[in-house]
């Protein structure tokens, strides 16, 4: 593709950072579709407006979602960009692939689409960027033949995602990969057949480090935690100090609740005041380990700002043991969906419904007893009013 066609885009090729322009120009010679998308983007830079139309309804038989229609508003000028639909595909739990699986995906998309991928979208899906309506059924058949299935879009359950968990990380409090895998398979209907008031995301983090940002991005956040005491190995702690580490600056002064102390010889932890922030454990992994009674905290309601402002998830179930086949998790999910189904308004996320309805009423509806630990973040007053409160006032 000649440089002169896109002088503004070419500015992005300068400087130390990689640019999508470089990758796309490499493909533009073999894929006219990619060339036209770049030319259209150049025009957008000149006109200072997008030349994609808003939305579009396309899909494959039996599925109400998974493909997002994208059309150019200038198909005569950019025929290659006339259709540029996005295909979402369920990612494997923790994004672990064999190289063969990646090759299969790339081969399929070079054959039936632009060949451009986004690994991964912010929900976690494998994203195949740019194909035409005619290629949707063929691409879908090719994907399912290799064992893949479409991801969620629209007012549906979105493909659940999780951190790398026990496969790569010592802090996983439970097998978050298995939870994610099982929930994804169990709820394929909810992913493929939009029937909710709005989108619903599930993200599973193995420990409070929350590497998938479940607390900020998932309507239903499952985050690993422990009930008992942090395991301490004083010998290893002293070794850290001999190696030059400073427990005061790396742990004691950074502890949000001042629950940890170092007297020069020994670490002591006030476990009742520990809020599971992971700071000290991350700093001294050989000396400090999470407790032995492990499970997860379930939090509800995070979302980005669209209809209303952004929300973080807040505690719904302070502690749940997470054991296969995860019936307790599914049972809770389905009770939440039922209440949302009955009371949710169009495009109202679950977190917004809880705010509108009030936590107390919501808990009553899903049949969960209020608990003082149901807070936005540790060290906060609960926002559930107990019956005793009303009696007193």
């Amino acid at each position, binding site marked *: 593709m000649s440089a002169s066609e896109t002088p503004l885009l070419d500015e992005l090729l300068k400087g130390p950072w990689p640019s999508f322009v470089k990758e796309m120009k490499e493909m533009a010679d073999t894929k006219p579709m990619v060339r036209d998308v770049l030319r259209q983007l150049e025009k957008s830079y000149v006109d200072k407006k997008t030349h994609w139309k*808003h*939305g*579009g*309804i*396309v*899909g*494959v*038989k*039996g*599925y*109400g*979602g998974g493909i*997002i*229609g994208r*059309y150019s508003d200038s198909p005569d000028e950019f025929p290659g960009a006339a259709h540029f639909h996005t295909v979402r595909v369920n990612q494997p739990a923790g994004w672990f692939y064999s190289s063969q699986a990646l090759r299969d995906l790339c081969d399929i998309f070079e054959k039936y689409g632009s060949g451009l991928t986004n690994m991964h979208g912010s929900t976690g899906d494998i994203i195949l960027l740019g194909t035409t309506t005619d290629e949707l059924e063929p691409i879908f058949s090719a994907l399912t033949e290799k064992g893949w299935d479409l991801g969620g*879009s*629209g*007012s549906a359950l979105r493909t659940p995602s999780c951190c790398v968990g026990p496969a790569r990380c010592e802090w996983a409090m439970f097998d978050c990969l298995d939870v994610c895998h099982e929930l994804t398979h169990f709820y394929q*209907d909810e992913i493929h*057949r*939009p*029937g*909710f*008031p709005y989108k619903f995301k599930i993200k599973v983090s193995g420990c409070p480090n929350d590497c998938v940002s479940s607390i900020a991005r998932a309507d239903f956040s499952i985050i690993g935690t422990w009930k008992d005491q942090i395991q301490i190995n004083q010998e290893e702690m002293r070794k850290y100090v001999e190696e030059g580490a400073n427990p005061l600056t790396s742990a004691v002064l950074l502890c949000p609740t001042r629950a940890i102390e170092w007297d020069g010889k020994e670490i002591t932890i006030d476990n009742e005041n520990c809020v599971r922030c992971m700071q000290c454990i991350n700093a001294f992994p050989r000396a400090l380990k999470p407790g032995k009674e492990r499970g997860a905290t379930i939090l509800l309601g995070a979302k980005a700002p669209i209809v209303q402002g952004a929300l973080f998830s807040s505690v719904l179930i302070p502690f749940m043991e997470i054991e296969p086949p995860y019936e307790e998790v599914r049972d809770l999910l389905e009770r939440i969906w039922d209440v949302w*189904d009955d009371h949710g308004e*169009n495009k109202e996320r679950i977190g917004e419904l809880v705010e509108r309805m009030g936590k107390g009423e919501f808990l009553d509806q899903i049949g969960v007893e209020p608990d003082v630990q149901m807070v936005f973040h540790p060290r906060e007053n609960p926002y559930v009013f107990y019956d005793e409160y009303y009696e007193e006032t």
Partner: protein
Amino acid sequence: MSLEVNGVDIDLDEDGYLVDRNQWNEDIALALAKTEDVEMSEKHWEIVNFLRKYYEEYQIAPMVKILAKEVAKLNNIDKRESSKMLYNLFPSGPAKQACKIAGLPKPTGCV
């Protein structure tokens, strides 16, 4: 895009939805159903008519959950079964296909 029905050319948008909703009649519905490979049965018409009635009243297509509840009520089945039934009748999804056949505006914002 356009579609010829009884000798008249009907304008469709790029997704095959009616451009002018007022043109809708049962023959056009049948022709639109054909573009979607849907063979209209009594059950299909029940849903299409419900959608039209709802749209007339509220000037908006119902949420899928409202449609699913109506289907559950009409057929005396539960919510999960009614979702299955909707997709059996309209394999590309009730929001997409049933609304198209009923001549309702295209559902928006699917990202």
